[in-house]
């Protein structure tokens, strides 16, 4: 008898710590690589520390010095401007194209799977591979992008990755090409779960295809749009791989965005303090977009109730 009592007791006593043990591995990794670095960046952002300058190698407390230095630096302000243009242009255009693609291929016709494949395939390519291919497309004179534009009657400058007016646009084109098909699949999934009776009623009421899309499909897919917007905007802040291949942020920083600048600051300038401040600024941007989206989706929920 005695041993069984002991084991059941032992069990009951041990049970309460089991869930904590199960969560522990995840907890440790999140603590080490999300919570700790966030705090570390916040802390480091108040110190001046440059690893490639001997007298600044040891950190000195300078309060908000890194932040004020950044915000009074034209280079950083240009980077901020580039980032906002990059995010605010690529995210909506990719989403709209994704929606358009979904509308176009949401039909049961033989061979439509090929179109879906064509739109979706950039999603699974590494961005650096995609960028290497686009590097050729943007080649002046015989690159396919320029050839294509000439067919359309374009006569402007051709060196897309080397021209300060075009470099950021080139970066955005590749980002849009890469992501539109990714957002498409969420719209496709959303469309395929829409109730058909609404459409039947609309057809009886004499609605045309355009009206049905505008007044039924889009409003019903509002949740999808909100979700896709969140991942698109947050994703855009982080999508910089192609810059390494295509422009290296140039010419004269014309295509440098926040995350790329952060990388340069930390690994080229070896400026730990400023890189930390940039990390915090980037996190604030990301949180702003996430929180805004949460607020929006809550409000929409109320509207239904």
């Amino acid at each position, binding site marked *: 008898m005695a041993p069984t009592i002991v084991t059941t007791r032992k069990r009951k006593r041990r049970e309460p710590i089991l869930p904590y043990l199960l969560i522990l591995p995840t907890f440790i990794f999140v603590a080490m690589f999300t919570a700790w670095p966030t705090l570390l960046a916040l802390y480091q952002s108040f110190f001046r520390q440059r690893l490639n300058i001997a007298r600044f190698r040891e950190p000195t407390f300078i309060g908000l010095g890194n932040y004020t230095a950044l915000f009074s630096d034209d280079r950083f302000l240009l980077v901020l401007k580039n980032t906002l243009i990059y995010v605010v242009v690529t995210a909506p255009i990719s989403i709209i194209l994704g929606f358009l693609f979904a509308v176009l291929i949401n039909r049961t016709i033989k061979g439509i799977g090929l179109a879906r494949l064509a739109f979706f395939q950039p999603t699974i390519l590494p961005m650096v591979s995609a960028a290497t291919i686009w590097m050729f497309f943007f080649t002046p004179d015989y690159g396919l992008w320029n050839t294509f534009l000439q067919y359309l009657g374009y006569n402007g400058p051709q060196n897309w990755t080397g021209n300060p007016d075009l470099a950021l646009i080139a970066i955005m084109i590749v980002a849009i090409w890469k992501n539109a098909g990714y957002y498409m699949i969420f719209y496709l999934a959303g469309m395929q779960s829409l109730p058909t009776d609404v459409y039947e009623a609309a057809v009886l009421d004499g609605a045309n295809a355009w009206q049905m899309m505008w007044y039924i499909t889009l409003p019903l897919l509002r949740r999808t749009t909100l979700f896709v917007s969140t991942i698109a905007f947050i994703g855009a802040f982080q999508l910089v791989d192609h810059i390494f291949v295509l422009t290296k942020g140039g010419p004269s920083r014309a295509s440098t965005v926040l995350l790329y600048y952060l990388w340069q600051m930390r690994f080229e300038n070896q400026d730990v303090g400023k890189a930390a401040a940039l*990390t915090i600024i980037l996190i604030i941007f990301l949180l702003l977009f996430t929180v805004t989206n949460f607020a929006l989706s809550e409000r929409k929920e109320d509207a239904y109730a």
Partner: protein
Amino acid sequence: MPDAVTPRGFWSRLMFWLLLLVTALLALLWAVPVIWAFVASTRPPSEPLGRGDVWFGSYLTLENYTRAMSLAPFKLYYINTIVIVLMILGVQLITITLAGFAFAHFRFMGKKLLLFFILLQLMIPTTALLAPNFSTIRALGLFDTRLAIAIPYFGSAFGTFLMRQAFLEVPRDLVDAGIIDGCNWLQLLRHVYLPPSKSMLVAFGLSSVVWHWNEFLWPLVVTNSDKSRPLTAGLVRFTQLGEIGAQWSLLTAATLLVVAPLFILFLIFQRQFIQSFVHSGLK
């Protein structure tokens, strides 16, 4: 084509075919980069691309692939990428299953707080934290190892959340029956919770593999030699080698080397891939 699919009336029929044409043209436009890369990679190296002559050469060849392989240690890059991706996947599958199970099955103090803490990772993506994480990797003495590339992803808020959702869908009756039958927690997890949640695990796994196969910035930051460098970072180094220049056939061959395994898998399992991306994206 059956009549039922084609709408009646001249205008709507015209519209139908017009839309189909637009779809086909757009699809072609979207596919051109990959199609071109494939064609160009089979062009003989002795025939460089020029104005109006950027597609096929006079014969097809695989020479560019062998040359790319000999100019950079792509074999090593392959091994590194595969080891990194599998290491991440293996650890993630265990951590997210255990944590997801804990959050779905047990009641305990601080559960909400702990979940919120882990979900922080969704709000502050690891990519944004590359500078401070680099310091951590240095401090751990992991710089320039494959483990350094993988370790920040061992815990996944996203995967934990997905598994929690999947486990919450398992009918309570089934769980109670298991408990009455005297299952311990591991048996409950293996025989009651996991079987109906396998598709979610597969979905997460596929998107994890694609995501980490393609990752570039973090590996770039924490590697310094070919012994740990994955395909993506290797490719970028390759494109910047002085002697490569504008040898597009060679560059496209190298590019496709990086892409090929995933792309072939994707072509075979297209439906599962797309499903998994939808699943792992939707809440």
